[in-house]
């Protein structure tokens, strides 16, 4: 499988503090890859680095083209959708506006309309709440809104930062089922950052383990899942 995203020698800095040291990984076209690691390992920073939201050094190739150093909004236009930590809801806008904003650069109104309908197939609950102010949605609904908004960008790659954060287990299962469908039906490659390692390893085909800003292990999820260190540190058995 060809790699959609190749990251090598990636360093990231917050001011003077370096938080990533020489991170490298590949995301296969059409696959689901997960980044595991403890708090502060650099998972979120890696996602932010891909979208140039922190100061970086190294190479990030998307579809063969170096995108490191491009402005965030230009990277998004390459069809990389980032679902950030905390869901990034536009709280004072309606659900409808939250979704439409992701399509504002597109001229073809009919296509945007069709897109909305297609997104509602995955998230019928959002359709019921279409005119509601997004800040009044529940946490689970806001997470669905965030994924739906990312879908409106027609992404080739979706970066997801802890979609399970703060949600009830049933909602989390529902969201992960939807992610699998999106990956299969929309041919969207996914890079998933998760605290819930068991869940992430079930969904993903490939896994990378980060520790203090470095990749310490990688491989197919099945292999990583059965690694003794991973089992002890992240799966708890």
């Amino acid at each position, binding site marked *: 499988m060809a790699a959609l995203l190749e990251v090598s020698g990636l360093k990231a800095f917050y001011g003077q503090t370096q938080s990533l040291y020489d991170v490298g990984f590949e995301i296969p076209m059409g696959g689901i890859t997960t980044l595991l690691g403890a708090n502060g390992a650099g998972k979120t920073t890696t996602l932010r680095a891909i*979208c140039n*939201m922190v100061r970086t050094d190294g190479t990030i190739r998307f579809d063969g083209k170096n995108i490191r150093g491009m*402005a*965030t*909004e230009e990277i*998004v*236009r390459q069809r990389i*959708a*980032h679902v*950030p930590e905390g869901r*990034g*809801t*536009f*709280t*004072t*806008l309606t659900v409808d*506006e939250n979704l*439409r*904003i*992701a399509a*504002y*650069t597109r001229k073809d109104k009919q296509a945007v309309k069709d897109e909305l309908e297609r997104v509602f197939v995955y998230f019928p609950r959002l359709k019921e709440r279409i005119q509601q102010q997004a*800040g009044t949605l529940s946490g689970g609904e806001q997470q669905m809104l965030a994924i739906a*908004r990312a879908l*409106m*960008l027609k992404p080739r790659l979706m970066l997801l930062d802890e979609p399970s954060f703060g949600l009830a287990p049933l909602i989390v299962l529902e969201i992960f089922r939807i992610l699998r469908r999106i990956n299969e039906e929309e041919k969207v490659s996914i890079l998933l950052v998760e605290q819930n390692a068991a869940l992430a390893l079930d969904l993903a085909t490939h896994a990378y383990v980060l520790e203090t800003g470095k990749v310490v292990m990688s491989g197919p999820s099945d292999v990583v899942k059965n690694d003794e260190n991973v089992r002890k540190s992240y799966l708890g058995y």
Partner: protein
Amino acid sequence: MEQFLQQIASGLANGAIYACVALALVMIYVSTDHINFAQGEMAMFSAYISWQLMDWGMSFWVAFILTVLISFAMGVLIERLILRPLHNAPVLSIIVVFIGLLAIFNSMAGAFWSYLIKEFPSPFPKADFGIAGVIGPHQLGVVLVTLIVLGLLFVFFRYTPLGLAMRAAAQNPQMARLVGVRVDWMLALGWGLAASVGAVAGIMVAHIVYLEPNMMGGILLYAFASALVGGISNPAGAVAGGFIVGILENMVAYAGNQIEKATGIYIIGNGEKLTVALIIVIFVLTVKPAGLFGRVVVKRV
């Protein structure tokens, strides 16, 4: 009774001006968290530009539209050239820049056009316009023009994709970037629009207060009060606040006159209306700190 209606009408006309400047302040506040102290002087400068264009022979409305466009460009340029480099500067530095801009516009107007008071024409026909004994032609015209401008702005922000992008950029800039919105340009556009709305206010009020470099000083204060009364982060509230403050100040003077007429004792009059209006504003803010229409921001976590 007729005098009462007249006072309401002139309050509405003044209020329309305050509403425009207040809206300009709020537009910049919601996207940057800063109050642009130079907003009034920018509006004054725009009024001078339209005076100059008319002096060169253009008709009022041609000069009006050109001035609005020039002011838009001026606002965009100020954001791109002066405020952009200060993007991460501390609040105090930005305040100093605003005060600097205020002084620069004031003295530039003085240098180009002198500090002598100039008459400024009204575009509205003297006869057959307005309602005799209640509202004069210029006052009615001012109210209509501002309502049209405010209506256009509402439609722009509410129903166009660019308006939506600007609202999104103001509300959550980081997420706006992540859906491809060029946030920096949205800020510059916001400055342009604010300068344009201010220009409308400046041109409309110049006929009433006459054209001179300090003409917007008091108005900026009223506009600031209006924005606070309405809720500084609520554009519709700022507009309502403008009309409320406009009518309020006239009612204060009117009540004072009536009391003096009835009892012969002078308590308040025209001279004190600004003071009393501001006292009422402070009272409102003490009772409702977020303003009449502002919402206390509660974050869901």
